[in-house]
C-alpha cells in the first residue's frame, strides 16, 4: 500500500487530501524555494491553511496546476490559466463572468501577449492560494485593498493616491469615493493614450462626471455638482466636446492620482498653486496670480457668478426686448404701408 502511495503517478481516484499531501511534502515546507538565474529568490511554499480558508478550499493542487503529472516535475510548471474553469457554462461551478473577455481587450493582456514578464494576469491581482470573494475584506481586490494591489506595480501612482482626497476616503471605508478600478475599469483597463480608455483626454470629464455630476453621490459631501456643468459650458468643455485634444479637462487642473481639495495647500487647485497649474507648459504659459482672481468654475446663469451673471442677464433681456420691439415695429410698419396701399394713397 505504502509502495503504491510513493509511485510516480498521481491517480485522480485517490482522495483529495492524499493527493495534496504528495505536493505538500515539498511545498509544505516554509523554506522551500528556488533561486533563479537572476539571483532572485522565489518562495515555493504554499500555506495550506490559507488555501483552505480561501474560495478554492475544496480544490486540489492539480485542479489548477494541471500540467503537473509527476514528481519531480519533468518541466517547470507553467503559469496557471484561470480560464481553465472560469468560463461561462463551466461544469466545475466556478463563478462565471465575462471578466476575462474584458481583460483580453485590456492593456495588461496586450502586454502579456507581448511576453512582458511583469504584466499582470488574473492571479497577479486576485491572488493565488489566498483568493477571497471580492466583497470580503480579506480579498486582494476588496474595495479598500484595490489601490494597494494595483500599487504593487504602479508604485508612484499609489503613493500619490494614498494621500489624495479619494485615497484617504476609501481607506476610511467611504463607499462612494473612487479607487483605481472606479476610474480605470476593473478588467478592461486601457492605457490613457488609447482613445477608448475611460481616462483618455476626451473621456476624462465623462468619467469624473459619473460621480461629480450626481447630486446623490457628491451632494453628501458638500461638493457642488455645478462643477461638471460649468466645465461643459466653459471654453475648455466646449472645445473638448468638439474634439480638441489640447484644451484642459478635469485632470489637467485637478491632476489624476493626487487630487486634493482646494483648501489643501498641496492641491494643484489651491489658490496659490493655480498660476503654476494654468501655466503648465503647453497651456497658458506666463500665468500669474491674476488667474486665481475670480471663480474658476463659472455658470453665467447663476447669481453666484456675480457680475458675470448680471452681464449675461442684461444681454438676455436686452436682446429679447429688442427682438420683440423690432418685430412689433416691422408688423406696425408693414400694416401701415399695407393700409396706405389699399387706400391707393400717397405717402
Amino acid at each position, binding site marked *: 500500500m505504502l509502495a503504491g502511495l510513493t509511485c510516480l503517478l498521481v491517480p485522480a481516484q485517490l482522495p483529495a487530501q492524499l493527493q495534496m499531501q504528495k505536493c505538500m511534502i515539498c511545498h509544505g515546507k516554509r523554506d522551500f524555494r528556488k533561486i533563479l538565474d537572476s539571483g532572485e529568490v522565489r518562495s515555493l511554499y504554499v500555506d495550506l491553511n490559507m488555501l483552505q480558508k480561501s474560495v478554492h478550499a475544496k480544490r486540489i493542487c492539480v485542479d489548477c496546476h494541471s500540467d503537473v503529472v509527476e514528481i519531480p516535475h519533468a518541466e517547470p510548471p507553467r503559469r496557471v490559466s484561470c480560464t481553465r474553469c472560469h468560463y461561462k457554462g463551466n461544469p466545475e461551478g466556478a463563478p462565471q463572468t465575462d471578466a476575462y473577455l474584458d481583460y483580453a481587450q485590456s492593456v495588461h493582456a496586450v502586454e502579456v501577449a507581448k511576453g512582458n514578464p511583469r504584466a499582470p494576469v488574473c492571479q497577479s491581482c486576485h491572488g493565488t492560494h489566498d483568493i477571497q470573494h471580492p466583497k470580503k475584506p480579506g480579498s486582494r481586490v476588496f474595495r479598500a485593498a484595490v489601490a494597494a494591489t494595483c500599487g504593487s506595480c504602479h508604485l508612484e501612482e499609489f503613493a500619490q493616491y494614498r494621500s489624495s482626497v479619494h485615497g484617504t476616503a476609501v481607506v476610511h471605508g467611504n463607499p462612494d469615493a473612487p479607487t483605481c478600478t472606479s476610474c480605470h475599469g476593473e478588467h478592461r483597463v486601457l492605457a490613457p493614450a488609447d482613445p477608448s480608455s475611460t481616462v483618455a483626454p476626451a473621456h476624462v470629464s465623462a468619467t469624473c462626471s459619473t460621480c461629480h455630476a450626481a447630486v446623490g453621490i457628491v451632494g453628501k459631501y458638500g461638493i457642488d455638482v455645478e462643477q461638471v456643468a460649468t466645465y461643459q459650458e466653459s*471654453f475648455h468643455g*466646449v*472645445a473638448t*466636446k*468638439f*474634439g*480638441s485634444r489640447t484644451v484642459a479637462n478635469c485632470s489637467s487642473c485637478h491632476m489624476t492620482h493626487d487630487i486634493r481639495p482646494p483648501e489643501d495647500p498641496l492641491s494643484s487647485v489651491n489658490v496659490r498653486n493655480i498660476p503654476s497649474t*494654468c501655466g503648465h507648459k503647453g497651456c*497658458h*504659459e*506666463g*500665468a*500669474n496670480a*491674476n*488667474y*486665481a*482672481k*475670480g*471663480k*474658476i468654475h*463659472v455658470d*453665467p446663469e447663476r447669481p453666484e*457668478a*456675480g*457680475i*458675470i451673471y448680471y*452681464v*449675461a442677464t442684461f*444681454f*438676455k433681456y*436686452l*436682446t429679447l426686448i*429688442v*427682438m420683440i420691439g*423690432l*418685430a412689433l*415695429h*416691422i408688423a*406696425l*410698419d*408693414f400694416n*401701415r*404701408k*399695407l393700409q396706405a*396701399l389699399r387706400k391707393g394713397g400717397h*405717402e
Partner: protein
Amino acid sequence: MAAEKGNASGPEMVLWMPLALRLQHGVLVLSVLFLCLSGFVLHFHQSAVAAFFIRLEGGFAARGIIHRIAGIGMAVVVMWHFVYVVFTEEGHRQLMKLVPATKDLRDFAAQVRMNFGQDVAAPELDRFGFREKFQYWAVAFLTIMMIATGILLWFGSETMALFPKFVIDIIRIFHGSEATFAFVAIFLWHIYNVHASPGRVTLPGTALTGVVPLEAVRKLHPVEFERLRKEREQP
C-alpha cells in the same frame, strides 16, 4: 452724394452709395457671415446645428481659424471706413450728415405717432434720417466692441495675466451675447428697413450698383431731394 445717373429708358436713378462704400459693405457682409457661422457654434454649442457646422468647417481648430480670419476682415473694414470718412472729401461730407441732431428725435416721435394711427405729417428726412443715423452709430459702437473683445479673447492668456480672471469671463459672455444681440438687430432692423421694407428707398441690387430711384428719394428723403434738385438747376 450729388452725382447723378440719368437713364432715358427707365425711372431716373441717383447714386446713393459710392463704390468705396459698396466694397466696404461687401467685405463686411462676408466677414459677418463667417463670423456668425464660426462664432454661434460656440455660443450655442448645445444645439445639434452647432455640431453640424463645426464638422462642415473642418473641426474645432479650423473653426477658430475661420473666426479669426473673418474677424481680421471686419477690423480691416473698420479701419478702411475710418480712413474713408475722415480723410476723403466724399466720405467726410457724408459723415457730417450722420451727426445726430434734435430734429432726429422729433422725426422719430412723429413717426411713432403716425404708426399708431395719429394724424401727423410724415417726418421730412435728409440724406440720413433718424433710422439711418441710429443704425450707423449703433453698428459702429457694436462693431468696435466686438473687435475689442475679440482681440482680448484671441490673446486670452495675455488678457488673463493682465486683468483678474473674472474680467475675461465678463469679456467672453459679452462677446457672445453682444454678437447675438447684433445679429438680431441686423436682421430685424437693417435687413428690414434697408432691404425689405415696402416702399423703401433701395432696390434689390443697390448694395452692388449703388443706385436708387430718384422718385423714392423724393418720397422718403425730401430734404435731400431738394438739395439734388437745386444742384441740378445750377449750371
